């Protein structure tokens, strides 16, 4: 019990999040938007307090808040939206936010590729199917969530574990009993030993055009890593795509079985 009370800064946003998600999940009757929204926002703010990003680079922090917060909020809105079409659109927003995060993580190619593949192909295909299958909008089974309480609790319990692990391994100090922040020595995330390079081609090397910069995040670096260290995996991925194509064509219902 003591340990639970100690972990209150972690558990409080979790509890608020459970409340928010549960209240927002589709149900009969009206949902308490305002309260749920307040709970959710306060949970996010509390989390921010715990896991505060470094404030040194304002732009980066602002971008992070934009994209990260946008992803979270769009994700919540996606899973709690009754109308499946709107939910798919919210998913597209999630994808865009995630791509923004990719940009922050020095992966511009990936963000562009994700926008094209995901938001451009996958989401569109899903939307096609929704619109073809459910022309009346939200149906009965869209309006009512299945096991909302249990799912929220289970999910957020997992989140609590993950956050606890992050907290244990992160650099944030714990507020001690006397109210002072004390820097506590924590184990760091595992870095590879200095003299061992496991994926040499994935390590950043000087750029061709600007030798004083490394090519982390450039297409050149990605390409070298992709077709260098992971060539075999690339070939396999191509084969998997081919097989998936054949499989999709084989599984899809025939015209003789009736159109959609």
């Amino acid at each position, binding site marked *: 019990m003591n340990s639970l009370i100690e972990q209150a800064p972690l558990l409080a946003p979790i509890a608020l999040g459970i409340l928010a998600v549960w209240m927002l999940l589709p149900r009969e009757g009206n949902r308490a938007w305002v309260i749920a929204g307040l709970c959710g926002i306060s949970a996010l703010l509390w989390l921010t307090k715990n896991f505060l990003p470094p404030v040194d680079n304002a732009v980066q922090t602002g971008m992070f808040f934009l994209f990260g917060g946008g992803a979270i909020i769009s994700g919540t809105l996606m899973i709690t939206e009754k109308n499946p079409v709107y939910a798919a659109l919210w998913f597209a927003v999630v994808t865009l936010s995630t791509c923004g995060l990719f940009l922050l993580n020095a992966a511009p190619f990936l963000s562009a590729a994700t926008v094209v593949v995901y938001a451009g192909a996958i989401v569109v295909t899903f939307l096609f199917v929704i619109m073809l299958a459910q022309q009346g909008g939200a149906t009965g089974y869209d309006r009512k969530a*299945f*096991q909302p309480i*249990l*799912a929220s609790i*289970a*999910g957020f*319990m*997992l989140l609590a*574990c*993950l956050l*606890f*692990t992050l907290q244990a391994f992160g650099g944030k100090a714990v507020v001690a009993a006397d109210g002072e922040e004390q820097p506590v020595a924590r*184990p760091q995330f595992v870095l590879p030993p200095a003299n061992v390079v496991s994926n040499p081609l994935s390590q950043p090397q000087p750029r061709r055009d600007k030798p004083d910069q490394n090519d982390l995040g450039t297409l050149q670096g990605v390409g070298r890593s992709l077709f260098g260290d992971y060539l075999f995996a690339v070939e396999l991925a191509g084969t998997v795509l081919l097989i998936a194509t054949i499989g999709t064509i084989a599984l899809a219902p025939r015209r003789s079985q009736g159109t959609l």
Partner: protein
Amino acid sequence: MSWLNENCLWLIPAAPLAACLWIVVAGQFFRRDKAHRVVVLGLLASWLCALNLLLVVVPSTFEDHGEHAAAATEVPHGGRLETKPGSVSYFIYDWFHVRGAGSQPASMSDRQFKADSGGLSVPVELRADALSALMLVMVTSVSLLVAIFASGYMHGDPGYPRFFGALSLFVFSMCMLVLASNFLLLFVFWEAVGLCSYLLIGFWFHKPSAAAAAKKAFVVNRIGDFGLILGIFLIWTTFGTLEFDRVLANPWLIQQTVAAQPEIFTTICLLLFIGAVGKSAQFPLHVWLPDAMEGPTPVSALIHAATMVTAGVYLVARCSPLFVHSPFALQVVAGIGAATALIAAITALTQYDLKRVLAYSTVSQLGYMFMSLGAAGANPQELMQPAVTFALFHMFTHAFFKAVLFLSAGSVMHAMGDVIDMRRFSGLRKALPITWVTFLAGALALAGVPLLSGFWSKDEILAVLHRAAQSEPHGVYYTVILCIALLTALMTAFYTFRAYFLTFHGPEVFPPEAGHHPHDAPPVMAGPLYILGLAALFIGLATGPTHLYGHYLHHTPGLPAPVVAHHADGHAAEGDHAAGEHGHDWFMMLTSSILAVGGIAAAYLVYGKHPGAQGVKEPTPLAKLSLNGLYLDDIYLALVVKPLRSLAELSEIIDRLVIDKIVDGVALVPAFLASILRPIQNGLVQHYAFVMLLGLAASLVWMLQALAGTP
């Protein structure tokens, strides 16, 4: 000849056993209608060996004929044959040998045998002395004649080989019972004769009444066997051994036990007597014998007249060295014998089934034998020997005349198409002359007409009872018993001749089942009838007054002799008996003759003069009482059978409603446990995903918990 002397002991039971095995193995399939040949041959061999035993082997062991025996015959020696004074034993194998807790001295003679070793050693050993020899001759001769008779009587029956197989098995068991050398072996064959009786009574097992009668016989016998086995246990704990040589033929051990715990003899004797009550159909366990008439008539003649029912008498006679020390037990024996004789005689007065009359008559005569045995209670030392002698003599003569009566009844049945109800036929004198003559011979013997065999044996019993009535301190008791015996003698004569007159005199009436012309016994049936008829008439005269039987029997080792001072060794001194034994009790002879003739005359007056007039009268209440066996069967039904049946039904209900339900309840536990777990599998993918997520979260929590505190 010496080979025969050495081996006749085990040949006597082995021959019928071999015949039985032959029938079991081959006789069922191979010449079924000739199955009797093997059995008759076996029984003939057995009879010849028994004669040899009686006339040659056993007399050679008598000590007072010492030089005589050594000169005339070779005393059997060698191999497994062992001769002791008065008896010869043949060892077959050691059945079991249980070591006791105490130590057993390395060498001990019979006289110094100590009963404190606590172990038990039971060999399969045959032992024959004078008593055994006499019984064996009786058993084998009657068996042989009955087997010959049965080959004609059972002709055409579908179970012909089975009959002869069971019959030879029975003779084997009876011979082994008589030849057993220890109590446990006796008990084994006691049960075996009960089993064979079951097989033979229930021979026509398709008839429900026959099956029920067989079951009744076995169950009632079993009740007696319970007492017998308890008695055997008590003998073992008291004497430490079960062998006849050591317990009964050993006066030293008995004297020791009398000195140490005299009251144990009463208990032992009463328990052994319970066994005799069951086997010999005494009151209260006599109810099985009349129903046993459902079996074929040869079976009734052999088992329920001559051999099996006499096993009880044999047991008491064999254990007379024990009984002699317990006057109370002997009084009980006499009392029960008297009660049985009276009840059976009363019941036989109104029976209309000829075989049942004879069955009740058997019960009554067995009561006579036990009365005789119990008469020794007045003065055990003095009276034991005559009591035992005359009881066994009556058994001997009874075997023959009862057998001839039963076989004649069988011949009547055979002629009348299996009808034995006396109300349905009469006047068979002219149609069945052979049967008429032999039946008359047997009836005269049974009634006790002077100079016939029944007269001699019955008269001697009455004489012993008279002596008992005259001695103190139980004179009054034995006077009552004597009066009952006399009354029973009168009634015996009456009902025997009632049956005779109803059957053979009067107008000739045949039942429809008889066919057009009832035929008399064929030669194969007539032969045994004649032989047994002659025996019924004359064997008593031949062996009784001449004291052939008595003197021979007195050589039985261990048989208590009246205390006489002449000879130094413990054997009975011949020629030196009290006057009452050798001299005849003329008063009793006269009384019994008058009673016999009076009974016959009364029967003639009632049934002989106006034959056929007893047809359709409604029985008076007294007659009904007699007809239904004094309602004893009904009493047993109400007191014993119905409560047990209710108990069985209650048990069945408990078994079905309680025990089965408990078992079902136990079976419900897995179902219940499963029903708790089943809802997890409800077919919904999202539920399964939820369980997976929950498992993941839980395992993560647990892992973090385990890692807590580690850097």
